[in-house]
């Protein structure tokens, strides 16, 4: 989850998010180097008493400051395209979950074997138990097995919403009448938080998403339990 005064991304919980994180580090480093260089040049220009009124042109430096940016852009584009195509790979999911956005809660359906679904409401602030996170925790989390390719189909029941979990590197709009697909693999067990990312009315800020990833055996126990209780 997010931390106070956080500067970078949340810890990655899926392979795709790891790639995005490293790509961001790579690109940001290039951006910092260029900015530092430009800032240095500006400082140098501003603080010198030397002047030159007779330079007309210079082929050499023109070539350098054309080729070097082109090279830098290629160095950014190649990893970027690699990740783009990685995210677009055909995957063979083990599980399909549907996430439906409503005003103002999410509901999750697991219908591969039985017609099983439940609503996921934010825990109101006055009902929080010690240790729960304000505006983030929900009564029923979306439970997922770790290290299994999962397909999530996202739609909405009323207005636009958006299903986002930053640590998995996922954000997908929930559009009424449309079924948007995204897929992920959760690398490690844990609880991952996200928030609705498309303005949807009064309680848009109060319909969080919580994904709980547990080993497959425990997932099977959980789904058996949930089926018996429903």
């Amino acid at each position, binding site marked *: 989850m997010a931390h106070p005064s956080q500067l970078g991304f949340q810890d990655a919980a899926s392979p795709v998010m790891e790639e995005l994180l490293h790509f961001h580090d790579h690109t940001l480093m290039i951006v910092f180097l260029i900015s530092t260089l430009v800032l240095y040049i500006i400082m140098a220009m501003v603080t010198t008493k030397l002047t030159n009124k007779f330079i007309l042109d210079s082929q050499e430096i023109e070539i350098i400051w054309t080729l070097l940016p082109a090279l830098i852009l290629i160095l950014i584009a190649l990893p970027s395209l690699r990740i783009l195509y990685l995210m677009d790979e055909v995957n*063979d*999911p083990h599980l*399909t979950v549907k996430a*439906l956005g409503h005003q103002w809660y999410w509901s999750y359906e697991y*219908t*591969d074997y039985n*017609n099983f679904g439940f609503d996921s409401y934010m825990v109101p602030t006055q009902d929080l138990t010690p240790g729960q996170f304000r505006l983030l925790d929900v009564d029923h989390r979306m439970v997922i097995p770790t290290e299994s390719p999962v397909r999530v189909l996202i*739609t909405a029941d009323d207005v636009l919403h958006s299903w986002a979990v930053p640590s998995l590197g996922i954000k*997908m709009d929930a559009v009424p009448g449309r*079924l948007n697909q995204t897929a992920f693999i959760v690398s490690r067990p844990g609880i991952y938080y996200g928030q609705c990312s498309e303005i949807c009315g009064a309680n848009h800020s109060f319909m969080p998403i919580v994904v709980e990833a547990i080993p497959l055996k425990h997932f099977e126990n959980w789904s058996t339990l949930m089926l018996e209780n429903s």
Partner: protein
Amino acid sequence: MSDRINEKIQNYRTAPFDARFPNTNQTRNCYQNYLDFHRCNKALSAKQQDPAPCEWYRRVYTSLCPMGWVQRWDEQLEEGSFAGRI
């Protein structure tokens, strides 16, 4: 061939990748499988054949389609107001 289909149905985990719908928008995938299930049932029943192979389409649309959509379409089918051609 029906053995292969039965095996596929028995080993069913979730809806597999369908190359006809490779992109993010899977609305048509859900709807097409729903249509195909009912068309398959209608066609096989008309020929007095076992509609068991149609089970594949039912599993796929159950996996993909929101329960609310399926319920709505089933009600429309019963009333006779379903817009799709079956």
